C-alpha cells in the first residue's frame, strides 16, 4: 500500500510540474461549455433570403415585410429574373429564394388562388428544410389573415402544445450534456494513454517494471490522479452550466456524480487499453483523438439523433460508450428521472469498464521488447 501511495504521489508530481497542461486541462471544458452554450445552436436565425417579385403589388409587399419581420430571415437581395437565382445561390449568403408569380395580388383577390414558390439551397439540407417550413407557416398565416373573418369564423381546431423538459426550447439542453460527454471521454482517454506511452518512449517504463510494483498497481496508480482531476472537472462543468445557463440538475445529484465517476473510470481504462497497443505518444494520440473524436460527435447522439440514422447505425453506435452516457446524463440532468430509467445503460458502462480493465491488465507487458 505504501509503495502504491508513493507511486500515486510520483504521478501527481508529474502532473503538477507541468502547470501549462494543468491549466489547459481545466480551461478546455470551461471554455467549450461557454462557447457552445452561446454560439452553437441548430435553430434558424437571420437566414438569408432573396425575393423575386414578378408582381410588385401591395399584397406581395405586405407578405415580404411579414416574412422579413419574423426574425428568422434577413433579406439579401432583390432579384429581377430567374437567371439571377443561380448566381445568388453560388455566392453562398442566400439560403432560399421566394418567388411571387405575375399578378400575385390580383389573382389572389379575383381568383382566390395565387402561387408562391420557394426555392431553397439544398446543399445544406437542414437549413433548407427549416427555411421552407418557416416560410410556409408564415405564408399560411398571412393567407388566413387575408381571408379575414370568412375563414376565421369557420370551424377551427386550436392545438395547444406543452414542450416537456425544455419549455423555452433552448438548444443548451442538447449541447451541454453532449459537450460534457465528448470532453470527458477525449480528455480522460488522451491523458492516460499519453502518460503511459510517454514512460515507454522515454525509457522510464523500465524503471517501473523493475520495481516491485505489480502491473495492476501501476495501472491503478496511473488512473488515480487523473480520476481525481477529471472529477473536479465534472464539478466545474456542472457549476458552470448551472450558473451560466441556468441548467440545473433536476434529478439526484449524487446519482449524477456517481454516473460521472463511472464514465470517467471507463474513459481512463479505455486510455490505458489504447496505451498498451501503442508504441509511442504519436500513435496513442492519433488513436485517442482522431479515432474517438468524430465517431463521438457524430454517432453518439450528441448532435444527430440516433433514431433518425439508418437502422445499421443503431448497432454500430452500440459499441460507443458515449452513446450510453448521453442517455444517462440527459435523463438525470434534464428529465430528472432516477436509476429506474437508466439501469440498462449503467450496467453496459460497468461491463465496458471491466472489459477494458481486464484487457489492459492482460496486454500490459512486463517485459521490454
Amino acid at each position, binding site marked *: 500500500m505504501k509503495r502504491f501511495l508513493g507511486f500515486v504521489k510520483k504521478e501527481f508530481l508529474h502532473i503538477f510540474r507541468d502547470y501549462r497542461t494543468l491549466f*489547459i486541462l481545466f480551461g478546455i471544458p470551461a471554455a467549450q461549455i461557454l462557447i457552445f452554450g452561446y454560439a452553437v445552436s441548430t435553430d434558424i436565425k437571420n437566414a438569408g433570403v432573396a425575393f423575386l417579385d414578378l408582381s410588385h403589388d401591395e399584397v406581395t409587399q405586405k407578405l415580404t415585410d411579414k416574412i422579413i419581420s419574423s426574425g428568422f430571415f434577413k433579406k439579401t437581395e432583390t432579384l429581377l429574373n430567374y437567371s439571377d437565382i443561380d448566381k445568388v*445561390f*453560388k455566392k453562398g449568403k442566400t439560403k432560399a429564394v421566394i418567388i411571387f408569380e405575375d399578378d400575385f395580388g390580383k389573382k389572389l383577390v379575383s381568383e382566390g388562388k395565387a402561387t408562391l414558390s420557394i426555392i431553397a439551397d439544398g446543399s445544406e439540407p437542414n437549413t433548407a428544410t427549416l427555411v421552407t417550413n418557416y416560410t410556409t407557416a408564415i405564408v399560411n398565416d398571412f393567407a388566413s389573415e387575408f381571408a379575414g373573418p370568412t375563414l376565421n369564423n369557420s370551424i377551427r381546431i386550436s392545438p395547444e402544445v406543452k414542450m416537456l423538459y425544455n419549455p423555452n426550447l433552448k438548444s443548451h*439542453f442538447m449541447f451541454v450534456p453532449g459537450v460534457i460527454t465528448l470532453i470527458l471521454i477525449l480528455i480522460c482517454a488522451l491523458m492516460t494513454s499519453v502518460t503511459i506511452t510517454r514512460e515507454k518512449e522515454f525509457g522510464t517504463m523500465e524503471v517501473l517494471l523493475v520495481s516491485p510494483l505489480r502491473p495492476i498497481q501501476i495501472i491503478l496508480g496511473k488512473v488515480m490522479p487523473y480520476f481525481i482531476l477529471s472529477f473536479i472537472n465534472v464539478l466545474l462543468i456542472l457549476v458552470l452550466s448551472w450558473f451560466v445557463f441556468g441548467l440545473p440538475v433536476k434529478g439526484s445529484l449524487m446519482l449524477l456524480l456517481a454516473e460521472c465517476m463511472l464514465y470517467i473510470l471507463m474513459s481512463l481504462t479505455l486510455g490505458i487499453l489504447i496505451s498498451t497497443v501503442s508504441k509511442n505518444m504519436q*500513435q496513442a494520440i492519433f488513436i485517442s483523438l482522431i479515432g474517438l473524436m468524430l465517431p463521438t460527435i457524430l454517432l453518439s447522439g450528441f448532435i444527430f439523433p440516433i433514431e433518425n440514422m439508418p437502422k445499421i447505425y443503431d448497432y454500430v453506435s452500440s459499441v460507443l460508450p458515449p452513446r450510453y452516457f448521453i442517455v444517462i446524463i440527459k435523463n438525470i440532468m434534464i428529465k430528472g428521472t432516477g436509476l429506474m430509467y437508466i439501469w440498462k445503460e449503467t450496467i453496459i458502462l460497468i461491463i465496458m469498464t471491466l472489459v477494458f480493465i481486464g484487457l489492459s491488465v492482460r496486454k500490459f507487458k512486463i517485459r521490454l521488447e
Partner: protein
Amino acid sequence: MRTIFYLIRKEFIQIFRNKFISKAIFAVPIVQMLILVPAVTFELKNVKIAIIDKDMTPESRGLINKLEGSTFFKVSFSTFSDNEANNLLHRNKYSMILRIPSGFGKDIGTGKQGKLLATIDAVNASSAQLTWAYLNGVIRDFNIDIIKKNITTNPLVPLPRIQITNRYWYNEMLNYKYYMLPGILVILVTAIGFLLAGLNMVREKEIGTIEQINVTPVRKYHFIIAKMVPFLLIGLIDLALGLVIGKLAFNIPFEGSILLMFLGSSVFLIAVLGLALFISTFSGTQQQYMFVAFFCMIIFILMSGIFTPYESMPMWAQDFNLINPVAYLMRINRMVMLKGSTISDISRELYSLAVIAICFSALAVRRYRKTA
C-alpha cells in the same frame, strides 16, 4: 532550394518510418468516411407518437387517420391513461403525446373551437419544433377538409388561398450525404495535418533532435517549410481519396472545378500547418501540444458551421469565424462541390484564407528560435 529538398526528404523518411502512422494517415480517413458519411441525417420521419383519444368520435378518428397517413408521424401507442402515456414518454418510447379531449367531435360539429393538447419531448429543441410544425400542418389540412365539407353546403363563400410550391436546388432529394461528405472530409484533413505536424515538431524538441538542426546553417524558414510540405501533400492525398470515395461509394456530384477545390485546400492546409507549427513553438512536450491542438480543433470544427447553421450564431461568433480557417474551407468545399461556384464566387474566402496562411506561417517562422 537543395537544402529544403533534403530536409523534406528527411521528414518523409521520419514519417513513414513509423509503420502505424504511415498506414493510419490514409486508412483512418477512408474508414471513417465510409462509416460516418451515410450515418448522419437531420431528417425526421416516422416520429413515434402516442394518442390519448378520450373523444372516440368519427372526427377524432378522422384526425388520427390523417396523422397515420402522413409519412412524418407513426402512431405507436394509444391509451386512455395519462399516467401510462407520460411514463412511457419518460422512457423515450415516443416523442409526443397527443390528447384529444372528450367533446372534440361535438365542438367541431357545433362550430365551436376544438381543443387538442400535444406534449412534446423537447430535450432536442430543434426536433421538437419540427414535430410541432408538422403537427400543425396535419391539423391545418384536417381543418381545410372540414371547411371544404361545409363550403359545399354554402358555396357562396370564396376561399382565397396561396398555393406554395417548393423546390430544393443542387440537392433535389435533400440527400444528407451530399452535405456531410465535404464536411467530414474537411475535419479529417484538418485533424491529420494539424495534429501530426505539430506533434512532429514538438517530438523533435522533446527528444532533443531539434538541436542537430539548430546547429546547422539551415535557415529558419527552410526548416518550417520542410515541416509543412510533407503534411500538405498528405492532406491533399487524403482529400483526393475522400473525393474518390464520394464518387465511387456515394455517387456525390461534383459540379465545380476540382482544381479550385485543391487550390482552396492547399491554402487552407498552409494556414492550419502554420498555426500548428506556431503553437508547437510554445509547447515543451507532446502532451501540452496535444491539449492545445485539441482545444483549437474542437472549437474550429464545431464553430465552423459544419453541422449547425452558420447565420444563427451570434455576431461575436461570426466575427471569430473570420480567423477560423475551417469555416472558410467548409464554405468553399460545399459551394464548389455542390453548386459549382467559380473562383469569383469564392474569391473573398480564398483571400481571407491566404491572409491567415501568411500570418500564421510568418508567426511560426518568427517564433521558432534556433538558440537554445
